[in-house]
């Protein structure tokens, strides 16, 4: 009876956790590509701004960033609701780590590939979009998979800015039931299952991408 009740509440929290994780991972990926490309391809000023962003975001604790957005930002006139704050904080954070992955991937493409593209008179933009990125994006996927799981775990912190995610619900239940062992065990299992699912999805995507790259449509073996 209580099990069912507790599970229902935790599941509702887990749904919020999943939504936040998915949105912030996707936004983070977008940031990662923009900043990572700016870091490698940007002129001296743009590349330096990108570097600063990456270093600063990776140098500060996520919880400090979330609290800063939540408590300090309104004092300079920008008030975001908790959900937006959480998404913004998580995306900015994981995006910086992702940008390093993108940078590493782009720099791993051999220089001779870029020279060959230049010899064929491709523009820099075209070279990036059609020559370098496609060659390396698959190699980035395992690292992106790890970051996605990292980000999922990081979402637990948004409970501290009053978002009713899985962790938040667990805290509520514990305060009511005082059965800490059961509630937290269930919560840990909840995160574990979500992480396993997320890893599996990322591995599936990587697998599909590899298949797609090796056997494109229209090719006869």
């Amino acid at each position, binding site marked *: 009876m209580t099990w069912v009740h507790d599970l229902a509440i935790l599941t509702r929290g887990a749904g919020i956790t999943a939504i936040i994780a998915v949105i912030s991972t996707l936004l983070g990926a977008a940031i990662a590509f923009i900043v990572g490309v700016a870091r490698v391809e940007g002129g001296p000023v743009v590349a330096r701004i990108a570097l600063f962003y990456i270093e600063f975001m990776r140098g500060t604790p996520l919880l400090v960033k979330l609290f800063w957005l939540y408590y300090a930002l309104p004092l300079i006139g920008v008030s975001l609701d908790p959900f937006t704050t959480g998404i913004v904080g998580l995306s900015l954070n994981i995006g910086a780590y992702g940008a390093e992955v993108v940078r590493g991937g782009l720099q791993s493409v051999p220089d001779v590939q870029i020279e*060959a593209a230049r010899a064929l008179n491709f523009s820099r933009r075209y070279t990036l979009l059609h020559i370098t990125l496609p060659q390396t994006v698959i190699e980035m996927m395992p690292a992106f998979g790890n970051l996605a799981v990292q980000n999922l775990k990081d979402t637990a912190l948004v409970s501290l800015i009053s978002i009713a995610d899985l962790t938040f619900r667990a805290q509520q239940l514990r305060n009511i039931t005082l059965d800490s062992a059961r509630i937290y065990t269930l919560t840990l299992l909840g995160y574990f299952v979500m992480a396993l699912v997320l890893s599996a999805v990322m591995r599936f995507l990587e697998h599909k991408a590899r298949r797609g790259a090796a056997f494109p449509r229209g090719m006869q073996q």
Partner: protein
Amino acid sequence: MNPPLIRFTDVNKRFGPLTVLDRFNFAVQPGEKVTLIGPSGSGKSTVLRILMTLEPFQEGTLTLGDLSYHEPNGRGPFMASDKHLRDLRKNVGMVFQSFNLFPHMSVLRNIVEAPIAVLDMRRDAAEARALELLRLVGLLDKRDQFPSQLSGGQQQRVAIARAMAMRPRVLLFDEPTSALDPQLVGEVLGVIRTLAHEHDLTMLLVTHEMRFAREISDRVCFFAAGRIVEQGTPERIFSSPEQPRTQEFLKSVLTGQG
């Protein structure tokens, strides 16, 4: 004599403290087939890479037709805008020692990609041209393969077709057979030989294949320490080199080749 298509005038090229080209002077006529030979590190690749705008140079002038490599108000390492560099590259193609095909594209796409994206050719026209070139290099049946599925010699033949698809006026070859197993060298040289018959195509070839150089070139230039020490018709350079360094170099390579 026609005005030269390519003219290096007192070009200096340095990598940090190392001077690679030292007041380098060199001119190439339209349609001429020129082979560059010389010891390792003498600057042969550097000449080709400068022509391909892969390397900037410090002083001197270089012209291609009526285009100068330095723009009057150009900036950056190349002293030229991106647009100007792209105008230059329109005229030049390059075949690399390591082929450098795009691994994620099929053979056909490797060839049609640039004509479509850069020359705005229609896909069907680009593909028709690509198939023509694939027939020329004898790889029509490989059109849907990927580079990793081809031998080195086949990859290099695709790379030649890819460069030719851009209809360059000047085609640069930097040791196109050096990375190949000996039994694959012949098929690539065969393709280059065919291209050498194209009257309008200007070719600059760096190679250690002396017999081949002798056969196809109008002129052979011997490089040492960033300068052309001796140049002339293949017959003259190979049978009666005047400079002691040329004699020494030829002796060392020709004994190796039997």
